[in-house]
């Protein structure tokens, strides 16, 4: 599949690259000017912390505040990071010039070498490198895709839709048992929607559940798209969902575990996350709906004791924390949901419905809920 892309790159992408490049050059110019002028070279990096995250109630989004941190060369704690930032900025420029993309891990290796004359490596592990790349994203105001960097694929899609992925047409109705692997970059120049009959999107938490739906050809019966994000969905999946929701106007329903982690996944899908608050507008789906599993399902679906997984202390603390999120705080349904979860004292996975019947979830649970419009949003 080695194709040389640059020649056939759409004009929009070229324009985007030019903009990104000018941002990087501007950053370097600033550092050079300060250095030559005997001033302290500084990179301004918007703070990616909870304190610098603002809940935009009107738009239903988590957005990044305006706080910025200075990263100085002449600060003992920041010197190394400053060097790494400049190193990666240079690396990204090379990528853009060459019209290639690299994974996060690839970037780690791209920037990795030994600092001249020492035994010190420029990056001690990938985490360090990933953090610097995120810093660059926010400080350049450019998205990861725009920096020609992608994350590893972790998402699957199947359903009544045909897309074009880098020029290849992909019919998501004919993806066999594996499904279409959602790429890490889901911008329109990579993934374009060609034809879509589906009326809604069902996003499930894990691959195992997704397989159940695929095998039962749920999407065929109910004319929908089924996606999966391997737990916390990566940016590519979120971006794709957002585009399906925004561009095609498909409602997004989420089928997640009944535990604080599931609630958190829903929260991220709907409002955005703290660490990616700067991308919320492109990723968050404020009208995403949570159809289950609900804490009350234990009684409603007449499940047995066997499916109970006791909440541990961490779960309890996390649940209470989630209940405090501003977008859940005034939401009666969610307060009740979390309250019930805590009162139950146990969590349940989507798979627990299998105890009723192998296809209970696809044949009974989801259709009934959708029909009854029984969901939280």
């Amino acid at each position, binding site marked *: 599949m080695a194709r040389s892309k640059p020649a056939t790159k759409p004009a929009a992408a070229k324009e985007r690259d030019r903009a990104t490049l000018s941002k990087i050059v501007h950053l370097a*110019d600033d550092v050079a000017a300060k*250095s030559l002028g005997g001033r302290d070279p500084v990179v301004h990096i918007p703070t990616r912390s909870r304190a610098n995250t603002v809940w935009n109630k009107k738009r239903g989004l988590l957005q990044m505040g305006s706080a910025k941190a200075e990263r100085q*060369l002449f600060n003992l704690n920041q010197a190394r990071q400053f060097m790494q930032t400049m190193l990666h900025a240079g690396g990204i420029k090379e990528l853009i010039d060459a019209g290639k993309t690299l994974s996060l891990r690839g970037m780690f290796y791209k920037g990795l070498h030994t*600092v*001249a*004359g*020492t035994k010190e490596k420029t990056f001690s592990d990938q985490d360090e490198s990933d953090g610097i790349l995120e810093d660059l994203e926010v400080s350049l105001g450019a998205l990861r895709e725009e920096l020609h960097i992608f994350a590893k694929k972790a998402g699957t899609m199947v359903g009544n839709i045909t897309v074009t992925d880098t020029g290849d047409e992909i019919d998501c109705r004919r993806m066999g048992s594996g499904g279409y692997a959602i790429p890490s970059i889901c911008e329109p120049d990579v993934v374009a929607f060609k034809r879509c009959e589906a009326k809604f999107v069902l996003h499930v938490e894990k691959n195992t559940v997704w397989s159940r739906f695929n095998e039962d050809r749920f999407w065929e019966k109910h004319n929908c798209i089924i996606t999966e994000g391997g737990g916390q969905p990566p940016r590519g999946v979120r971006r794709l969902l957002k585009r399906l929701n925004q561009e095609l106007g498909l409602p997004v329903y989420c089928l997640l575990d009944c535990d604080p982690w599931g609630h958190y996944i829903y929260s991220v899908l709907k409002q955005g996350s703290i660490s990616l608050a700067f991308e919320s507008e492109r990723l968050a789906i404020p009208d995403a709906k949570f159809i289950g599993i609900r804490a009350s399902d234990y009684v409603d679906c007449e499940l047995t004791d066997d499916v109970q997984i006791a909440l541990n202390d961490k779960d309890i603390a996390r649940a209470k924390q989630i209940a405090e999120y501003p977008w859940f705080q005034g939401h009666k349904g969610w307060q009740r949901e979390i309250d019930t979860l805590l009162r139950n004292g146990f969590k349940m996975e989507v798979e627990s419905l299998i105890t009723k019947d192998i296809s209970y979830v696809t044949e009974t649970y989801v259709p009934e809920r959708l029909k009854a419009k029984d969901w939280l949003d």
Partner: protein
Amino acid sequence: MSAVASDTMERTEPPDKPRRRETAESMAARQRDISVSEFFAKNRHLLGFDNPRKALLTTVKEAVDNSLDACEEAGILPDIRVEIEEVAKEPSKRRGADTPKGEKADKPADDAPTRGAGASARYRVSIRDNGPGIVRKQIENIFGRLLYGSKFHRLKMSRGQQGIGISAAGMYGLMTTGKPVVIVSKTGPKKPAHEVVLKMDTSRNRAEVVSETEHPEDDAMFAEGHGTRVSIELEGKYQKGRGSVDEYLELTAIANPHARITFVSPPQSGDDGPQTAEFPRAVSELPPEAKEIQPHPQGVELGTLIQMLERTESQQLGAFLQSDFCRVGPGLARDICEDAGLTGRTWVKQVGHAEAERLYDAIQRAKIMAPPTDCLSPIGARTLLKGLDKGLAPEFISVSSRPPAVYRGRPFLIEAGIAFGGNLPADEQARVYRFANRVPLQYQQSACACFKAVVDTDWKRYALQQPRDGLPVGPVVILIHMASVWVPFTSESKEAVADYDEIRKEMKLALQECGRKLGIFLSRRQRMLRESERRNIFERYIGEISKAVHGINGTDAARMFEALLAQARRRTAAADQLLDEEGKVVKADAIEGDETVLIRESAAAPSPAQPAPGPPTAPAEPRRRRGAPGALFDEAPPGKPAAVIAPTRASKPNRQAKATPAQRPPTTERAKPTKASERIAPPAKTKPKYRYVNGAIVPVEGERLF
């Protein structure tokens, strides 16, 4: 329980009425005078003759102390020769009867296995001085009687106090070897030298003259025409280390830099003959003469007051108060007498016990000036500094000399010094050098007020480690000197200073003063180290950054590198400020110009941050330091002057940061104050000593940077 108890009681036989064994008369037949010498012969441990090793030390110490006292009193710069020669192995049989076995040496000497008859031997100890000599008729008294001397009845600062020491040493020698003491003394070039052989009679506290020789006037025994030599043969043990004769002489040299001491020690294993050590004179002026003072009224107890009243030559009370005490003038004398319901004209003879008590109370109530302090002769800050420098050659010394204070009406003065670094062991407890009236105290450390004052001081504030209730840990020597007209020792062997509150307080103040300066020095050094680490880190990344920026926008990498390097230098300027061309520590600001501080080249001086080559540049021309180095002392420091070392430096400009103590020139160079404008970064390319790994600075044996 009670049943058992009563059972036991019943079984216990009622004690017989004690049989009368002695009558008062029969007991009276045995009751007689005990001579002081007999008492001390039996209790010689009280005088410092507990074991053979300590006995040897005490003998030397008593003789040297007497010599120093005599020389100073006569205004002669002391020149003392101590000679210890092994005479013959002691027959091991006889020894056991004499010396209590299993007696343990004191703490500081615990490294010396002192027990075991085979370990001790017979030595002849001879101490010769250039003092004023002793007139013939006093020789028997001074060397043959315990508690005979000139120093007990006066309040004057001197080493000796009671007049026990040297006679006790002679007595010990006589008892362990049966050999008498030989004294040679000459009082002037025109006078004959007398050689007297003395044997002590313990029961009478008198000495018998065994033989007597009069040498001709023109003998060559004393180069300066006067002096005394005493030879004592005794059973002892010569061993170096803590609590040894060597240590005593070293310490004595520190506290008495005006003395010249020659020490001839018996050959140790490996030596091919007696070894001679010289402690040269470091200052050539005598310490100011200590004045004798009268007792302070408020330092005298009631009993003493009554005794003084009985013995005074004054007729009337007013005269008595004025003449027999210090700080009492006619007005004060009158006030005291009136307060006691007496008058200045009251006849002393008529003052009975009741009146004396009233007088005593009145004295306590009166406002009397503190005793005069010209009776104290401190070592002096500069002299102390020199003594420590000469003896230990550390990196840092600070000394302090407190103003005189008073305990029990007796003036005293505390001096302290701290030596840090150099070759002092880094991981051990600090050593405490204690002195009283310039005499080193080597035993009973933990009983001494000095030790308590050191332990009491919070050394953590001065950047030293200190375990709870312990001595600080580090390459530190702490010196405390107490000068007083009467040093309160805890025992006759004069090993520890008694723990009076006033004394301990003064000691702590002196220590704190020194400690503060040490703290400044250490934190300065710490900062330097930090700054040079900082620079290392900055400089390490500058190359990478320049390259990356060049890759992005084509900025000239070399220019950018230079610019950033200059900035890094500027920002870590503190690392340079304290390093001169040799990478040595220069004095810290706060203690700059302080006469009581000496900072020498630092063994642990951080490597000067290295100017990374990166883009090649012309090597910076090392700027020359202008002006002569301002010496801390007006005299030239002993040994080679700084200039002698300069050529070495010039020929090996790349060497200094790597210099190990062994490579460094001998410790003759003093701190060279340089002006800020003259301080420059060493031009050498050095290896980075630290690197930054996962947020931590770790030492590295790295190759060259860039």
